[in-house]
């Protein structure tokens, strides 16, 4: 019976699921609290052209994304080949696109700001 053969292979991973839910909830609450209060010492310091607060948001987001993909989408149980095919391709292309578009956006901002055409009317 298919019943018996599958039942003993997969013991329940309910505990891990609730643990991950806890992590995701705590991170979201931290993000929301930071988003509402916006502590001045975090918005005043800036690293590599961006406020420290924004870096914190992005790192926390990636942390959440990691848990969703690895625990909820079972990426941790897939083979190395599948994991790399999906994650590396996506991450590489995303970084490439973000780099190009943000650089270009910043350039246009400078042109608007320092060019000889007035936009402020």
């Amino acid at each position, binding site marked *: 019976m*298919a*019943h018996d053969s*599958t*039942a003993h*292979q*997969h013991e*329940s*991973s*309910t505990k891990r*699921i*609730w643990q991950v*839910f806890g992590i*995701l*909830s705590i991170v*979201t*609450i931290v*993000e*929301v609290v*930071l*988003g*509402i209060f916006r502590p001045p010492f975090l*918005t005043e310091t800036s690293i590599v052209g961006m406020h420290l607060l*924004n870096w914190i*948001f*992005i790192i*926390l*987001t990636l942390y*959440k*994304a990691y848990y*969703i*993909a690895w*625990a*909820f*989408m*079972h990426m941790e149980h*897939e*083979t190395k*080949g*599948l994991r790399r*095919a*999906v994650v590396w*391709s*996506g991450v590489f*292309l*995303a970084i490439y*696109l*973000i780099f190009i*578009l*943000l650089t*270009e*956006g*910043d350039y*246009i*901002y400078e042109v*608007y*700001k320092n060019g000889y055409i*007035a*936009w*402020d*009317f």
Partner: protein
Amino acid sequence: MDATVVRTGTEGKTWGGGNQPLGASYGKLMMWFFILSDALTFTGFLSAYGFSRFKFADSWPIPDEVFNHFPFLHGVDAPMYYVALMTFILIFSSVTMVLAVDAGHQMKQGKVTTYMFLTIIGGLIFLGSQAWEWSNFISGEYGALKTKGGKILQFVDGEGHRVALEDIAVIQESERTTHRENTGVWFEGGSTVSEFTLEGIKEGFAASDDLYIRTLDFNEEGEKTILSREESQNWLDNNVTGIVEGANLTENEYGPPLFADFFFFITGFHGFHVASGVIINIIIFFNVILGTYERRGSYEMVEKVGLYWHFVDLVWVFVFTFFYLV
């Protein structure tokens, strides 16, 4: 003769053929690659948003000021609470989905049914919340003025609190009505006429001393610039061309039109994914009830829609950060 015996030298190797190097079924593999391509679509949207935001770096709206509504708390400034709630709803529906997948592995039909049902309910609540968020965004709250150069000007009082157009404008008797199809033979289109007129707002501005114009430009402290009385009067007299109430694809009272465009396209495209996810979940839910997967001996279909559903949650995590937090 052993000429027909072909040896490639790859026997027993991972990619030598005859085995499953990625250890996943065709369906699951294709779901993963669909998710990858879809993730890149969202990357395109979000980085285009980043592009526009960098382009208008010194005049982009502050999300906390735009999305500050909460049901039953009318007029209360509640930044972020509502999206935080939506995020929790979606994360929780992701948890029930993964619990359904887990129950599927153990071939527990009853549990899969319950968890799938909860997931669908979570998805529907999320969609409803998003509709509410859209309707608030579209109808707007305070209203604003637009200038010749496409800038948005908002009104504040002496303490920097926003003032709505309806509290400023002197309502004038006028013959103007919205032009509709039933009033004209050659009707081709017409814009909605606001209940306020520019003259009424100018009159109201002159009548009150405690009104100032706020532009969208950031000052040194990273706050929006509030003009002095004289400067405000100068902008009103020389540059203002019309009234903006709420948001649509061509203009919005919160800032650059692109802000509203990206809001509609990104949250809309995500909402479309949630909606299709709910529909697919419902189909699978009925299959679970009918015992299709029980007979098939495997709940892999639940796992596959689960992957899609988690992906929708994953995208929301990014939309939440880049639209509401950063």
